């Protein structure tokens, strides 16, 4: 149990997929103009990450090793399309705000990286813990960036524009790295 909490802390902070591993930055920077949009994409990414990684772990002995990438893409595509269609059917207003990026979760490298590094080697429960903690870490990154940009954007419209995304994400990454520089 404590290892799960440790893993959660790692995913939230040191190994955060966005600030630590610098993965999935394209949707991160594009969608985080507001907390609402960030929440929508966080939920979509989380669902796709967890369902696809658990599925990949479940079929890890079945999927042929040297054509595993097409097999992973099939599974991730299935999960991303399903989540997109479900959002369209049951959360239409949210879907309209993030439509393109919800579909693009299929190409989110956080998901593929964890499929390749964890899910295809580990049992289902390990893949579940890993994808849940990673998904929460990514959601946290989205929400912090979304909240910061929306708040700063009230006074400084630049924060809500694309350059603002790069500036604020850069500052957040710098903030994260600062305490670790000493022991590097």
């Amino acid at each position, binding site marked *: 149990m404590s290892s799960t909490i440790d893993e959660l802390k790692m995913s939230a902070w040191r190994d955060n997929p966005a600030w630590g591993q610098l993965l999935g930055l394209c949707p991160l920077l594009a969608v985080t103009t507001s907390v609402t949009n960030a929440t929508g994409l966080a939920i979509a990414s989380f669902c796709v990450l967890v369902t696809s990684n658990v599925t990949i772990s479940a079929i890890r002995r079945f999927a042929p090793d040297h054509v595993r990438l097409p097999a992973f893409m*099939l599974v991730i595509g299935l999960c991303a399309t399903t989540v997109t*269609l479900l959002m*369209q*059917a049951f959360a*239409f207003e949210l879907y309209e705000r993030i439509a393109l990026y919800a579909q693009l979760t299929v190409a989110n490298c956080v998901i593929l990286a964890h499929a390749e590094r964890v899910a295809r080697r580990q049992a289902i429960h390990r893949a579940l813990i890993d994808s849940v903690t990673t998904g929460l870490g990514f959601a946290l990154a989205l929400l912090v960036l979304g909240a910061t940009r929306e708040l700063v954007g009230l006074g400084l*419209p630049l924060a*809500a*524009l694309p350059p603002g995304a790069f500036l604020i994400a850069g500052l957040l990454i710098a903030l994260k790295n600062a305490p670790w520089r000493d022991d590097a």
Partner: protein
Amino acid sequence: MTMVASSLRLALLGTVVAALLAGVDAVTRGQILANEQRGLVRVFVDVTGDGRLAKLTGPLTPPLTVCTAAGTPLYAVYGHTARGYAGVIQLLLAVDAAGKVAGVRAISHRETAGIGDVIDGGKSDWIRSFDGLTAASLSAGAVDVVSGASVTTRAVIDGVRDALIDAASAPSQGCSNVLDD
């Protein structure tokens, strides 16, 4: 594992995935279509400011002529494409029976956030300054260009004027949508 065996497994996986997706599509399709229709009806209510249009049924692709149950035309709704600062601006405009603008909305655009999105009805009231105008009053400069967003707002003003001129010269059509009482 041989190449053939791998290919067969991949093909099997692909077939399963395709079948699952077809299932999800069948389950969600009706709801998604209904959502899209409802979204369009909301846009029509917003552009005319007339709550009666919430009951709009029938084809929803402009141009529309919306009539009362008695057959009196209420609004003509047109789509128009303008070229803005950063690509195409899709305009939707409603004209009342007297030929005056009942409302205009930019339903899709890629203008600069915080500058050109002054044309967005949800962010600024500028687009509402067209309400009640005609092609003639627009040509006479009834709506001002917004400084800083002059290319964008000029494109919308010209687009609305052109759409009004096109509408006036187009042959009048029968009712495409009739509102129930």
